[in-house]
């Protein structure tokens, strides 16, 4: 199934040459089937942001195998259809400018590599909350199976829907 994930961002693009570390994350994909509504959750993402000359570049990577839907059979099937053994990571790259800093919402252009394919998502909105020294980011990436040329997994010969939105919940801290 699957699909996956994520994003990146960064709210406060601090001073030049600063760095951000992904403190914790929850990424959840949602799959719809006439007989099932399934979700797979990963807490295994790792991410880093590097800011320089007013621009911050972020990279987030999550192992495909780290998604857990509560059903080992389904998880193996998802890894298979997404070619997760061959392409074990989902990576997300984004670049944000310093001028976005004080916003409570950011719109990020994401480049996601998954299942051996690259997809670009323009202006994906994320909500930003500052909590102490940490920055909490939430949003949903409108991923689809066709974005990554994934054949829809099927149950009882009925394929799942093409839309596989990925909810993102991340906490970043400056390094």
């Amino acid at each position, binding site marked *: 199934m699957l699909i996956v994930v994520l994003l990146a961002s960064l709210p406060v693009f601090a001073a030049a040459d600063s760095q951000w570390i992904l403190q914790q994350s929850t990424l959840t994909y949602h799959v719809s089937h006439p*007989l*099932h*509504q*399934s979700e797979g959750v990963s807490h295994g993402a*790792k*991410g*880093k*942001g*590097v800011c*320089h000359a007013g*621009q911050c*570049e*972020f*990279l987030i*990577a999550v*192992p495909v195998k780290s998604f857990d*839907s*509560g*059903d*080992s*059979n*389904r998880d*193996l*099937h998802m*890894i*298979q*259809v997404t*070619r*997760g*053994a*061959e*392409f*074990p*990571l989902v*990576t997300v*790259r984004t*670049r944000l400018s310093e001028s976005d800093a004080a916003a409570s919402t950011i719109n990020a252009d994401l480049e996601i*590599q998954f299942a*051996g*394919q*690259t997809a*670009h998502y323009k202006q994906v909105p994320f909500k930003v909350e500052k909590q102490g020294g940490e920055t909490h980011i939430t949003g949903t990436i409108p991923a689809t199976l066709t974005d990554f*040329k994934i*054949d829809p997994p*099927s*149950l*009882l*010969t009925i394929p799942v829907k093409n839309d596989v939105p990925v909810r993102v919940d991340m906490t970043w801290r400056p390094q």
Partner: protein
Amino acid sequence: MLRNWLCNPFVAFLRLLFICLLVQVAPSLIAQTTTGVVRGTVSDESGRAVANAAVTATGIETEQKQMTNTGPDGTYKLELSAGKYRLTFEAAGFKTLEISSVTVNGPAPEVLDGKLEKSEQVSDKPAATQQESLPNAPSSSTSAPSLSDLGLSPEQTQGNAREQALLDKRTHMLKIHQRMGLITTIPLIATVAVSFNAGGKNTSSASRDLHAALGGLTGDLYGITAYYAIRAPRVPGTKKRGPIKFHEAMAWIHGPGMILTPVLGIMAFNEKNKGEKVHGIASAHNPVAIVTAGAFGAALLSVSVKF
């Protein structure tokens, strides 16, 4: 008595249908048991090896894909099930090369070299198979973080084509298992439905024949269904979780039941044909069949409907 039952015309007819069905399934079974190797070298127009080129074999009949990348010396190797494949070679800065049909039919390796022509324009959006799109590709910017900055282990970043092939085979077999399981429910339900006319005092031998024939067909289809589940490769290190545990537990009930039910059924069949009342152990045919069918249905529902 077994011979009498097997020579029954209804049984013979339905078994003929079954054989026709088996002929349909056999090619995929054979495809899973015969493998071959396609290997070669990918180079550019000047003959220099092209590293990290993506080589994809797509089954012409199955549409299943298997992919690998060339090494630093431009060589690649794909282990494929027997069949016909379409091969594509892709690399950043080169035109895609496609070989429309390659036949793999035995252990002798097919050697297919690919010569790539430089593309006139390089897209600013990396193709899926270009080096930049690979998980371990370097960042496009010197200031951007790279995967090595994230502290991921090599096991987490490096692809494993052999494991992917194992997963592909597993999924392929379990899809057949699933479809055969669904097909099996049809004669199973029919067998149960006609059983009401097969065991009473006033039943005709034709009703019993039909019941026996449908039961035999159900057993045969069940055997194929079970084969594909049992022979599907296991993935090392996987801990079973979720409904699949119940699904497999039910197999310990309907599996023996699918053996015991026809054995008892044959005994009951012959007793009835002799004009006797079904007695002794043969009288357990009915309850054993009910439990077996119930366990089969529960197994099916456990992976179909979320409770």
